[in-house]
Structure formats: structure tokens, C-alpha cells
């Protein structure tokens, strides 16, 4: 998931959530996704290509995404990934379950500090 040892592995499903959330803003192609996540996370997270493309294919198979032929900013042919309704539903349920998990996680950490 990450390239250097300071970056730690994310939990399973995190990559999917980030991709879905990013594509919710606007449809993007692969490289744009990588750059977007890198920028938004202010270089804290970096998506490795080796994980990105298989993940995109998995999500296409699940029907969360659609791929369409498009043109990149430089005018070359590429594939643009767009969120589907099923993708939005999945994202929302994932986010809420993630938030619950994170809230619990924070409470446990806080209790340990006290």
C-alpha cells in the first residue's frame, strides 16, 4: 500500500473508500486519482500503482464504478472512472461503518491515556 517504511499499511477497504470518495467529487482517470489522493492527504498517503489498478478492476466488477473512454488533460486517450449509484450506496455504508469504528477506536485510545 505504501512505498516507504514510515508510511504504514492501511486497514482493508481504506483504498476503496478513498477511491470512491475521490471519484464522488468528479470522474477521474488513474493517474489523476493517484495525484488527487497525494495532494489532498498532503503527501501523507500515497497510492501505489500496483494496488490501484487491480483495485479499480475489482470495483468495476462489483459495479461500484463505470469506466468510459475519455481524453486526458494532454489530449491522449484514456479511461475515466465514474461512480455509480451502487458505488455511492457502498461508499456511504462504508463511511458510516468506518466512522463508528474510528469513534470506538478514539475512545479506547483516550481511555488508555487517562
Amino acid at each position, binding site marked *: 500500500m505504501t512505498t516507504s517504511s514510515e508510511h504504514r499499511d492501511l486497514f482493508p477497504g481504506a483504498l476503496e473508500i478513498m477511491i470512491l470518495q475521490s471519484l464522488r467529487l468528479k470522474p477521474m*482517470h*488513474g*493517474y*489523476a486519482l*493517484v495525484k488527487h489522493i497525494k495532494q489532498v492527504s498532503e503527501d501523507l498517503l500515497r497510492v*501505489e*500503482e*500496483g494496488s490501484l*489498478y*487491480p483495485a*479499480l*478492476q*475489482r470495483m*468495476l*466488477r462489483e459495479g461500484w464504478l463505470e*469506466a468510459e473512454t475519455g481524453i*486526458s*488533460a*494532454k489530449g*491522449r*486517450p*484514456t*479511461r475515466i472512472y465514474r461512480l455509480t449509484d451502487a458505488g455511492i450506496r457502498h461508499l456511504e455504508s462504508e463511511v458510516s461503518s468506518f466512522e463508528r469504528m474510528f469513534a470506538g477506536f478514539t475512545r479506547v485510545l483516550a481511555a488508555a491515556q487517562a
Partner: protein
Amino acid sequence: MLGLGHFFSRKRRYDDISVSVQEHINERVDELMEDSMPREQAEQAARREFGNVTLLRERSREVWQWQRLESLLADLKHVFRRLARSPGFAITVVLTLAIGIGANTAVFSVLNSVLLRPLPYPDSQQLVALHLNAPGASGLAEFRSELRLSPSMYLTFAAHNQVFQSVGVWLPVTASITGIAKPEQVDTAAITGGVLETLNVPALQGQWLTAADQDSHSLGRVMLSYGYWQRRFGGDPGVVGRTITVNSQSRVIAGVMPRGFKIVNYDFDLLVPLAFDPTHEILAGFAYRGIARLRPGVSLSQANADVARLLNLWMDSWSNGPGNDSHWYLNWRITPALQPLKDTVVGSIQTVLWVVMGTIGVVMLIACTNVANLLLVRADARQQELAVRSALGAGRWRIARELLLESVTLGLLGGTAGVAVAFAGLRLLRGIGPGELPRLTEISLDGWSIAFTFSLSVLSGLFLGIIPVLRYVPARQRLTVLGATRSASTSRERQRGRNLLVIAQVAMALVLLVGAMLMIRTFMAMRDVDPGFSDPRSLQVMRLSISETLVSDPRTVIRLQNSILDKLAAIPGVSSTGFAASVPMSGGEPAWNNIYIEGKKYKDDNAPMRLFNYVSPGYFQTAGTRIVAGRDFTWAEVYNLRPIGMVSESLARELWGSPQAAIGKHFREWDSMPWHEVVGVVQDVRENGVDQVSPATVYWPSITDGIYGPGTFDARRNLYFVLRTSRAGTESLLNDMQQAVWSVNGNIPAANVQTMQDVYGDSMARTSFTLVMLAIAGTMAFALGILGIYGVISYAVAQRTREIGIRMALGAKKSELAWMFVRSALVLTAIGTAIGLGAAAGLVRLMRTLLFGVSALDPLTFAAVPVALVAAAALASYLPARRATGVDPVEALRAE
């Protein structure tokens, strides 16, 4: 799961991935160039950052694939392409495996059909054979392995048992069928009620013989076998209710039994009812084979206990006539030893089949070892390629999978071809139809055989593949191997694997050769036995039967038989003729009883049992059985019913010390019988096969005083006529014989027309079958083992050419160098031989029952086989070793 639509749109998906990845890299390149990096450098950097494009594409594509099936298919395509590139290798391996797997499948099918599959009767596990032992009937064991049932036993068992659903007895007999075509003698099973009920196979047409058919006063009906129905009646569905003439009596056909139905293992043409008359039956008459169906939940030991009870009841209820002690048979100590019917059907063939299966299995192992060697050489050649691929990031599992896929593919190809080999082998076997093999018609390739073939193919494939995998699928750190193929240590390591294979081959070959050698010694020992007849090739045998309904008077029967004999003797080319109630090794149900010697007292009146035969004057001379002392019968004595007899040499020695001393002595069968005078002593005859003891035998004239008192006579109505002639076995002689018989009486059919050589050969069939199988296996193993040694030494010589060059340059003698290689071969052979000898000593015990005249640990065999093997190994290694001495040191060193 994925829909079919996905499958078809996959091409588009794959394009999508490629396009996306390409654009990804391009954008990165643009970005780097914007940071003023030169294009070339930017492209390199972008690709480096991106990582393994191919791997990523593969991973992305796998998402759309059916559980990696397609990457497996892709690998499979590679495998076939690689095999196609070396067809010689592929064909050698597939053929070797095909023969190995095919032979194993064939033998397994036989084993499965004969030993493992249940008998073809409903709930066959309930079926038992009523086997009785009589250890107190001394002498019986010489010619009978069990005491058969008497009619009175059957009647008692049927009426009073508490353990059987049904019980019946039967007897293989022959019957003359007249009035359809030519008179014909057919194999017939005479059955009581209870036999068909026990076997419980419904009739195909009509109905079973019923209880009404068992009435001795009714004419009785008959049933046909499927085969006879087809052969004689063309499968006519209206045959039920028609009459046929059986033994000159017309009988109504009650029904037809279905195809493949046998009475135990007797393949009959006709079923006739046995009708015992309880008012006339006595205790004796031990000739019938009993079968029964156990009630559900009854065990063999419970059944044995009940039969033991019934035997006492039997002695209480019957007698051997007035004045006889009905409990006299307590002397025989008759004990029930019921056995599952399957054991009776399968008989002694079990050992042979397991030995053959083991043998074929070992050959398979040796063949696999050879193929493994080939695969190792091939993997050697690919070692560099594999190391490179591993360095480029191919996973260990991935490489292992490919190697295993190749070997399993070879295994499955071999297995597929093997099924064809097995099919052909089984057809051949059914064609030859060895008489000793029971359930021959049931042998087939079934699901179990196919499952066996499949697992054998996969297992041998994995076995073959695992050796190169263990060796060549490197851990990451072994990348150093790359380019270091010539290092002495790796080649030595490789050599060690090959050495182990050779040792295993030598050991296995030795075991098989010892087995084959023991069978050869057995066969030779059997050939050396004097069977009690001479030159079986020129001895023609024919069985004739004159039923009571055709000719009732015993004296007329004997005159008829005498005139047939005269007609046969008049056939051109026939030098002598005779007849006997049984000929050696023909496997008929013999006559026997106790024999009392004049002037001798017997404890409890229990004289030993002796085998009986009834012979015509001239029979012994015709058969080539030597008369050791005294003389033959004359026809005048036969017609005048003179009380005379002959005895076998062993009986004469047992009773009177020598053959000469026996002449003029007297014996008889029962009290009221006149004493019979011994007029001649003949050599011992191997009645039950050359590997069985010669039973003590009494020979009677063919017409004797009847058992029902003075003035009654018994003639033998089923006789084997024998002819000594150089024309034996020819079609023209058979015609002449049939004409000779019909010129006397047109209603007498001939049966069992064969030469004595056929009879003799049949009795050796089990031994020759085992011998042939072991000899083939042993020869193959020997050849493969020797090839293995040759290969290993050749390889060693080729690998060590440089070393040889150096040694020669340093002054080593040629003969020393050659010896160095021969010695290493001999060390391998010696180790293999030692292991093999140990294994053989243990394994040959299993075949002890197949041996005759030779001990399982025969010193000659155990000395000769290793010597032969070592000599052959020395030769096989000397040939390549000599090549080493031809090495030119300068050339050898330059070649590096």
C-alpha cells in the same frame, strides 16, 4: 459469479487496463519533463516508479478471470508448446507412462472385477458356501479339500435349519440333447430347490424351476442359460413351454436365466432339477455342493454352530442301511467351515493376482524412475532459464506450478493413452480366457478403474515433477547459481540424485528378477514331474455319456462302450485306445470310499479313504501309465465280473511294502462285497495337477457289483475315451471319431474333445500365467535398470571430461580411469543389490503358495540373480567408461 457477458466484454476490459496504464505513465513522464528532466530519463524514471507493468496487468486481469483458471490455461499452452518442441522426449515419456499406467489399470481392473466387486447376485454378502471338513476321514485330503454334502444332509439342512433364508445343493453334470440339431452334450447344473432362491436372480423369460419340479416321480422341467437360448433357439421369445429331449426324455422349458448368470462359478447351458427321494436316501453320497443365503443379522459363526447341530440331527435321522451304526460318521469328525461364497468363487487366484499387481506396480515405479531421470536432465537444461525468471520476479510457486503442470500433463497424457493400452490388454485377456481365472466375463473397465487410472496418472505426474521442483525452484539467495552451472559441487549434487534413482532401480529389478527366477524354477520342477502319462500331445480325449434313459441295462452299456472302443481303434493312425471314468487333471467330481484290506483290523471300522477310477483293458497302455507290477485287466475278466482290481504304486507300498508284494492281495469296499484281488500295480498319477500329491488310488473294472446287493451291477455311464494317435487334435480325426461313435449309436454326443496336452496345459495355467507376467516384468525391470546404470555413467563421464583431462595430463593410466567409473557403477549396483536382496527375502514369502519344488529362499536364485545383475552392470558401465579413456587431455581442457 461472473456472468457470460463479462466473459465476452473482457477483451474490452483488458484494453481499458492497457490504455489506463499507458496514460498513467505518459502523464508522469510529462510531469517529470515539466520539472526539466530530459524525455529519456523521465520515461525511465516513470517506468521505474510504476513498477512491474506486466505483473500489474496480469493482476488486474486476474480480477476478471475464473479463479486463475486462465493463467493456468496459459501455462498449459506453454507446456504443450515446449513439449511440441521436443517431440522425442514427449513421446518417450508418454509411451513409457502409457504402458506403465495401462498395465496397472488392466491388472487393477482384473483385481477389482474378480476380488473386490461383490458377486453379481442381490445382497451377495449373505451368500455362503456350505464347506465341510472331515479331518477324521483319513486319505480324503489327498484328493479333496473338503467333504461335499450328501442328499440326506441337504434334506436335513433344508428342513431344520434356523439360520438360512434358503439352502440348496447342486452338481455339475452333462446332459445329451437330441432332436434339435446334431446330438449334443451340454454343460448342465443339476439343482435342488433352494439354489435359485439362494442366488435370487429372477428368470429372464418364464419362471424358475419350482418345488414341484423336485418331485422324483414327475418328469421335471428344465431351464436354459441365456447363451444356450441364443445359440440353439436364436433367442426365440416363445421358447418357454416348448419341449426338448434331454437324456432321451422330453422336458418342458420352464424359463431362461439372464445373461451372465452362473451357478457359483459354473457357466452352464442347462439347469435340470435334482429330485431326491427321501424314502431311498442314506447317509452317504457326498458329492453335492451346498450354498445358502444367511438370514439377515446371522454371522458365519452362528451359522457354523447351527450346521454343527444339524449334523448331529442328520446322523440321528438317517442310516446307511439296516445294521449300520448311523453314528459311525463321528469318526470322521465332520465340522462345518462355511465360507463367504465369494471366497469359493475367487479361490486360489487371489495370491496370483496380488503378486501380479505388486509386480506391475514395481515396474511402474521403475518406469517412473527412468522418466524422472529424463525430466531431471531436461530441468538441468532449463536451469539457467528458471534462474533468470526467478531473478526477474517470478514467484517460487509460479515456477513450481509450471514444472508440476508439465509433469502432471505428461502423467495425464500417459494415463489417457494408458486407458487404451488397458482396454486392449483386457480384450486380449478375455480372448485368451485363462481357464483358471474366475469371473472372467465380469472383467471390465468400470468407474473404479478409471478413477484408479486418473489418480495413478496425477500421482505419477506429481512424483515426476516434485524431483525437479525440489531441486530447481530456488530460494531467492540461490540466484548465484546463475552462470555457475559448471561448478563441481552442483554437478555432484545432481549426480547424487541420479545415483539414488539408480540404486532404487537396481533394488526393484532384483526383487522382480528373483520372483521371475523362482517361477522359472517352479515351472522347470513341474515339467520334470512324471505326471503318470506320456506324450500328452498325441493323446486324444473325448467324453461320452450314455444315460439310463437311453440304455438301462448295465451289461448292454459296457458292450456298447466296448464296441465304440473297437470302432475308435479301427480309425487309421490310431495305435491304441482305452477308457476311464476320469483322466488326470480334468477336474471332475471323483469317486472315492474307504477300502478294507483282507486280514487287517481297523479302529472303529474306519478305513482310510481312497480315490477310485474305473478303467478299461488297454487304458494304461494308451495313456502311457506304466504298469509297475502284475498285469492289466482283460475283457474276459470284465464281462465275467471277476473280482479284481489294480492299485497305485504309492498305495501298494503303503499297504504291502512293495508293488510286487501287492499282487495277489485282497481288498473290498464294504462288508458284503467279495474280496477283490490285486492283479496289477501302476505308477502314481498326478490326478489333481503336477504340483499336487498323487493320491492313493484303486482302479476297478468299469462294471462292478452293485451296492444294492448280489446280482446288481453298476456300469460307468460317463467315460473319457482316450486314443493314442499322431493325428491327435486334428479336425479330420474328430470327424472320424464322431462317425465311429454314431456308427454304434446315433444318439450319443461327444463332449470335452481335447488333447491331453490341453488338459495338462490348463493344469499348469496358473503357474505359466504367473511365470509369464513375472518374466515380462523382470525383463523390463532388468533392461530399465541396466539402461539406468548406463545413463548415469555416461552422464558422469560427460560431466567429468575436464577432470579426466587433468588426470590424464597428470599421468593417470587409462585403465585406472575406466576402472574409476566402473567401480562407481559397481558400488551403486552393490548397494541396490543389497537392498533388493533384503526386500526380496521378505516379499517372496507372499508368493510361497505359488511355488513348487523350490524354496522361497532358493539359494541358487538368490546367488545367481545378483551375480547376473552385477555382471550386466559392469558391462553397462564399462562401455561409457571406455569412452572416458579416449578423452584427449588437450581437447578436454580446451572445450571448457
